[in-house]
């Protein structure tokens, strides 16, 4: 493969606090050099990235790829293609497939499929309990050996506090991360957020407290066990506050939120819009603002999409019957850019939340522009309009409340180990040959 010289980009690397204009040279699939005025090596493909931001490939620590079992919604191939189109070079795949990823065999199957697809690195997250049934722990050591990077029963909570305690203790022995789907099921009986809009629509609501009591429980159990806990898809002001206090107390907890929680409120459900049905549900404006504040002050560590593809079958139906979930891999960048445009985040923060931090939390390679590291890169044009229409989406499903809208900003170039896996303008087409 020919060397590639990416010139005149705004280089953004949170790992080294780098934010300056310059060039980046890719050779043999690795980052060979970065700086100003790098001379092109012989035979190199040179492209000008003026106006674009160039940073480490994005890392989505929370996606649902639906394979095995629900390939009509998404496959590892289509999901990683969507990842590449969104600027992601690595994704962590949640275990609620059919069958669930609760054995080394399923973990290896996912890795094999991902290797064949080749569009993004896939890091399997294994189930905490067998069948995600909450009764027996999975074989953490064996699963880690097979390639799992963390453990979660995501899609559902670990219902028993005693089971969660044992999971955290056992994870500590294995040096593993446990990701909490924080939800108290006895309170989470609604189909949207409980409050003004649920009252107006006559839909059963789930109070914010359903998330908050679970976050509090898991944070206390992390303190009790000394294990590493990560809280997924934080959506409420109360949960942000509990996490803030936990961090101040020195508890080893990290947390993520998703773009829809800082971009939308429960109002998006108006008209029984099933595309805005998700779990946890979209909350109030006060919650949305608290989530943004949580990102600003570092209470929340990462932005993950919770990419949850569903076909039309699961969405074009009665609201109460519709599946929870929204795709997010391809809209994360423009939605995060809204926060940059609102001065809530800096461009460096954007790459921190979407790349450096998730890579660090998962303990995987990536998240920096270190010379010598694999050239997993993402270039963003912050001003590029992006019409969210089915023809422009590479995910197999199109369930997003942003459907039909034109967002601003888009990943224009994604390199995976130096190979273009998304090249919106065809600028590196010759490099693929």
């Amino acid at each position, binding site marked *: 493969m020919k060397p590639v010289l990416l010139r005149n980009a705004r280089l953004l690397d949170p790992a080294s606090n780098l934010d300056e204009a310059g060039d980046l040279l890719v050779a043999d699939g690795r980052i060979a050099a970065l700086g100003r005025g790098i001379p092109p090596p012989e035979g190199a493909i040179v492209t000008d990235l003026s106006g674009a931001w160039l940073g480490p490939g994005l890392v989505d620590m929370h996606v649902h790829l639906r394979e095995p079992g629900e390939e009509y919604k998404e496959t590892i191939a289509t999901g990683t293609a969507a990842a590449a189109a969104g600027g992601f070079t690595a994704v962590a795949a949640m275990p609620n497939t059919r069958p669930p990823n609760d054995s080394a065999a399923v973990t290896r199957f996912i890795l094999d499929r991902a290797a064949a697809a080749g569009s993004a690195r896939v890091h399997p997250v294994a189930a905490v309990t067998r069948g995600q049934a909450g009764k027996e722990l999975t074989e953490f050591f064996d699963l880690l050996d097979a390639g799992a990077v963390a453990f979660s029963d995501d899609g559902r909570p670990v219902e028993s506090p005693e089971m969660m305690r044992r999971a955290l203790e056992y994870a500590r022995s294995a040096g593993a991360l446990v990701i909490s789907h924080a939800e108290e099921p006895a309170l989470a009986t609604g189909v949207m957020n*409980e*409050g*003004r*809009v*649920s*009252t*107006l*629509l*006559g*839909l*059963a*609501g789930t*109070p914010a407290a359903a998330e908050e009591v679970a976050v509090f429980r898991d944070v206390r159990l992390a303190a009790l066990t000394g294990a590493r806990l990560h809280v997924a898809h934080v959506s409420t002001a109360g949960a942000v506050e509990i996490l803030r206090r936990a961090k101040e107390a020195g508890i080893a907890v990290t947390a993520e939120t998703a773009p829809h929680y800082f971009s939308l409120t429960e109002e998006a459900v108006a*008209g*029984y819009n099933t595309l805005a049905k998700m779990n946890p549900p979209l909350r109030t404006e006060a919650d949305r603002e608290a989530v943004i504040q949580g990102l600003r002050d570092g209470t929340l560590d990462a932005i993950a999409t919770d990419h949850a593809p569903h076909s039309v*079958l699961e969405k*074009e*139906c*009665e*609201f*109460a*019957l519709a599946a929870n979930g929204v795709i997010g891999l391809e809209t994360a960048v423009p939605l995060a850019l809204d926060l940059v445009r609102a001065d809530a985040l800096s461009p460096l923060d954007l790459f921190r939340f979407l790349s450096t931090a998730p890579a660090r939390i998962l303990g995987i390679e990536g998240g920096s522009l270190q010379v010598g590291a694999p050239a997993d890169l993402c270039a963003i044009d912050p001003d590029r309009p992006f019409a969210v229409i089915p023809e422009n989406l590479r995910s197999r499903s199109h369930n997003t409340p942003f459907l039909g809208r034109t967002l601003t900003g888009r990943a224009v170039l994604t390199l995976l180990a130096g190979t273009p896996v998304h090249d919106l303008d065809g600028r590196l087409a010759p490099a693929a040959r």
Partner: protein
Amino acid sequence: MNPFGHRHILGISQLAPGDITTILDTADSLKEILDRPIKKVPPLRGRTVVHLFLEPSTRTRLSFEMAAKRLSADTVGISAATSSLVKGETLVDTARNIEAMRPDVLVLRHPASGAPHLMARHVDAAVINAGDGTNEHPTQALLDLMTVRERLGRLQGLRVAIVGDIAHSRVARSDILAFSKMGAEVVICGPATLLPPDPAALGARVTLRMEEALEGADVVIMLRIQRERMGQNLLPSLREYAARYGLDRRRAALAKPGALVLHPGPLNRGVEISPEVADGPCSVILDQVTNGVAVRMALLSLLVREG
């Protein structure tokens, strides 16, 4: 589009006060037909009304059927047990199939909130919501308005108390919206386990004390208590509910003299309402049933009228 300006009746939430007045005036003028020896007029001759009732119903369904027949429409009824939905057909496919047979009006009762909205997106026929989950029951609210206006001569400035399981009642939700829109003050009352999370969003004031709700009320609407609420830990017993939130003669006396007592039925006598109140002089429960036919005739004629 008909001159009425609405293609569907999905909820009170979509109606302006002027729309409601039009419906009530039309219902008033059509009610007289019910007292004729030959109770049939021709406005909907050759029109087809499909009654799709996917939840048990006696009076609402019968009322809609009768309203359609009084206007000479052809009516077809489908119930949950006899529909293809039991074979796994989706509601959208059911809608498309019904639409393919070109009905003029589709009356839908469905256990899911918002189902008529979904249906309306997929059919050209006028959709009338005959009750959707815990969302709305607009025709019930309209017949309640008609009954109150008929008896008291106005809606503006009245004080309306609604007592019972507000949280799970589509009747309560439509009534709150409807009476508020027409200028009445609505107070809702029940144990906190049976109240919606944000009553102010609907335009109602809340009290947990029955006595406070009744004081000065011009209209008292009692709601049916569903026995399964006890299994959901929302009520410890019907005995205690009847003692604290049931309407008996003593409590009814707290309302204004001559205050009307309404109930959407079916009644749990001795639970939310005592027999002497249900059958007493202030009760307009059977007027509600009669007016239900008139209101539904009004809606059918307004929605189907030639543009």
